[in-house]
């Protein structure tokens, strides 16, 4: 057996069923070994597409996924997807070919220091020095990626090691992952005391709830205590979007009710969230009169941005079970419900064109019991999805939150659909984002992946235009996309059926098409170029300084 064959055997041994990748010179021995394997390889049309497709698989299943590329430019094309996975804590093993080890450091053809390039955006990086090390490295890579705070791990694989003969074998049984630490009794005691004394408590929950496999315990905690809930972008769905205690997303594009509740609470329970600047606005004015309890798997988050009175590390679910108790907070709950009614979203836009918020709201209301994943790109449409689509579980919402990578949605959806073949997968994208990885339409066609694409086209980089309008005296700089291609003809050229939508009367047809079309579908939806995302907290401002469509602060 050579090193490449051993690598594939070790991947099989870890339960890998799919690899997303793109071949090239230095990784060719591995692709040769793949021919004799049961692992299914999906060829994307760009390495970044492979990285995001692997992310889609991992995000929708919480299982470690694998992507692969060759050395040099193949590896650098993966970097954006790896950095994105690092920011959002996605478990992924990244395999890159490398020039033969005796050529490393000589500026050889397609040689780059991928190990060095990936260092700050991976949990750990390996460069394989001997084929005998492969079983240990692969085992460690999967354990590191999928334990603790998840993240990507690099295996850089020189070509001569791939050809090296070895007697090594894949390691036998999977070793148990390191145990998650137990709750801290003293911190728990303080937290319970704070909860019992609070008059206006508020839950601010993020993606760590789902990653900690704690959604059920979270819902029990919420309903038993009766505490109102706001979510971060990645927390959406921890509490269903139509749940009465859910006040909306918090932060820059959060709901007015959610942001008012944060500013008014006297106890903030940060659960699986990390005080990200998009959620907090001006940090010193975030929940300014509140004491805080922080529940997080990662102890490095404690005290990073906010000093809290009780820091509960370890298992999120176990901590929530320990904290669950009924509370008497009726006046506060009634106040938050009043805000929720007063500042409810309106969908009665008067114009004839499609109103994206209404379409997304109606789409989520029209969904049946079939699992439906929404893969967003980045921009205005991403925020409209977060504000108006009612998620029933956080795993159904895939979005590039930390890195905010345009071009994420389409390739991520490929990975989602292949990992969840019975589910419905919808990409919600914009005319800027879709062009970043448009080549993956060819991957849809090649594997007949039944992904639906809902493109909102405002012929501009809408979010940048909105900021230029609001914060740069309406001076539009390099945001015009009025020379976009004919997207329907483009989709048809890739062999994907398409439909064009220009009038609000067609919104119902869009929903039916997204629900009922069996194969892939590309829906090109024209929206108003001037449409903005409201409300908005100006960058660096307090969440109490929200701007609404009328341009007034609601603080």
């Amino acid at each position, binding site marked *: 057996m050579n090193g490449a064959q051993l690598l594939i055997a070790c991947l099989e041994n870890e339960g890998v069923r799919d690899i997303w990748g793109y071949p090239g010179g230095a990784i060719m021995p591995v692709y040769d070994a793949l021919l004799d394997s049961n692992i299914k390889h999906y060829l994307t049309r760009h390495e970044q597409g492979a990285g995001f497709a692997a992310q889609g698989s991992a995000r929708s299943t919480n299982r470690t996924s694998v992507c692969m590329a060759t050395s040099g430019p193949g590896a650098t094309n993966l970097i954006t997807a790896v950095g994105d996975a690092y920011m959002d804590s996605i478990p992924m093993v990244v395999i890159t070919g490398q020039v033969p080890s005796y050529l490393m450091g000589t500026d050889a053809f397609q040689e780059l220091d991928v190990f060095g390039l990936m*260092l700050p955006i991976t949990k*750990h990086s390996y460069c394989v020095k001997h084929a005998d090390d492969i079983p240990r490295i692969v085992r460690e890579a999967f354990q590191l990626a999928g334990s*603790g705070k998840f993240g990507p791990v690099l295996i850089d694989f020189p070509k001569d090691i791939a050809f090296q003969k070895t007697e090594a074998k894949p390691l036998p049984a999977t070793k148990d992952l390191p145990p998650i630490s137990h709750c801290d009794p003293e911190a728990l005691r303080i937290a319970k005391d704070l909860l019992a004394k609070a008059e206006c408590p508020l839950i601010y929950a993020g993606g760590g709830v789902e990653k900690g496999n704690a959604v059920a315990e979270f819902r029990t905690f919420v309903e038993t205590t009766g505490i109102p809930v706001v979510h971060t972008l990645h927390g959406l769905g921890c509490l269903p979007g139509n749940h009465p205690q859910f006040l909306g997303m918090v932060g820059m594009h959060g709901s007015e009710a959610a942001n008012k509740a944060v500013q008014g609470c006297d106890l903030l329970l940060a659960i699986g969230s990390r005080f990200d600047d998009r959620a907090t606005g001006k940090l010193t004015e975030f929940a300014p009169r509140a004491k805080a309890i922080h529940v997080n798997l990662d102890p*490095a988050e404690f*005290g990073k941005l906010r000093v809290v009175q009780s820091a509960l590390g370890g298992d999120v679910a176990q901590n929530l079970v320990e904290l669950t108790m009924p509370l008497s907070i009726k006046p506060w709950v009634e106040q938050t419900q009043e805000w929720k009614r007063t500042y409810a979203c309106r969908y009665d836009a008067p114009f004839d064109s499609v109103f994206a918020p209404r379409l997304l709201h109606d789409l989520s209301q029209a969904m049946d019991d079939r699992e439906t994943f929404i893969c967003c790109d980045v921009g205005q449409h991403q925020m409209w999805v977060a504000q108006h689509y009612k998620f029933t579980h956080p795993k159904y919402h895939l979005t590039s939150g930390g890195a905010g990578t345009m071009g994420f949605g389409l390739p991520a959806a490929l990975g989602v659909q292949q990992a969840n073949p019975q589910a419905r997968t919808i990409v919600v994208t914009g005319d800027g984002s879709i062009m970043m990885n448009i080549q993956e339409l060819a991957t849809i066609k090649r594997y007949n992946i039944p992904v639906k694409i809902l493109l909102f086209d405002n012929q501009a980089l809408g979010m940048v235009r909105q900021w230029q309008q609001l914060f740069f005296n309406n001076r539009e700089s390099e945001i015009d996309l009025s020379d976009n291609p004919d997207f329907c003809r483009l989709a048809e050229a890739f062999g994907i059926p398409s439909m064009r939508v220009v009038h609000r009367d067609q919104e119902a047809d869009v929903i039916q098409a997204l629900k009922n079309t069996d194969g892939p579908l590309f829906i090109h939806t024209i929206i108003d170029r001037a449409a903005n995302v409201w409300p908005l907290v100006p960058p660096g401002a307090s969440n109490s300084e929200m701007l609404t469509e009328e341009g007034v602060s609601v603080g």
Partner: protein
Amino acid sequence: MPPVESSQLIIHMSRAYGSLNRLIGIVRQRCFEIESMNVQSESADHYRIQMVVVSERNVVHLLKKISQMSDVTSVSASKLTRVLETA
């Protein structure tokens, strides 16, 4: 601005390929400057590293991140004298 403080870290860590680079990367990424660094091979597999870092940031957070590295066996920190204080 918060005061700039210096701390001494004692780190026992694996000599695995790239471990020093990973350590330096984490220190730099968390906005700490390395004032001095003394690396000793205490065995065939392990380094003992004495490092003085300087930052306005709280060293406790850096300590937690370093302790999470799979290369690291143990890490401890002690505050040194305050080297600079701005108004």
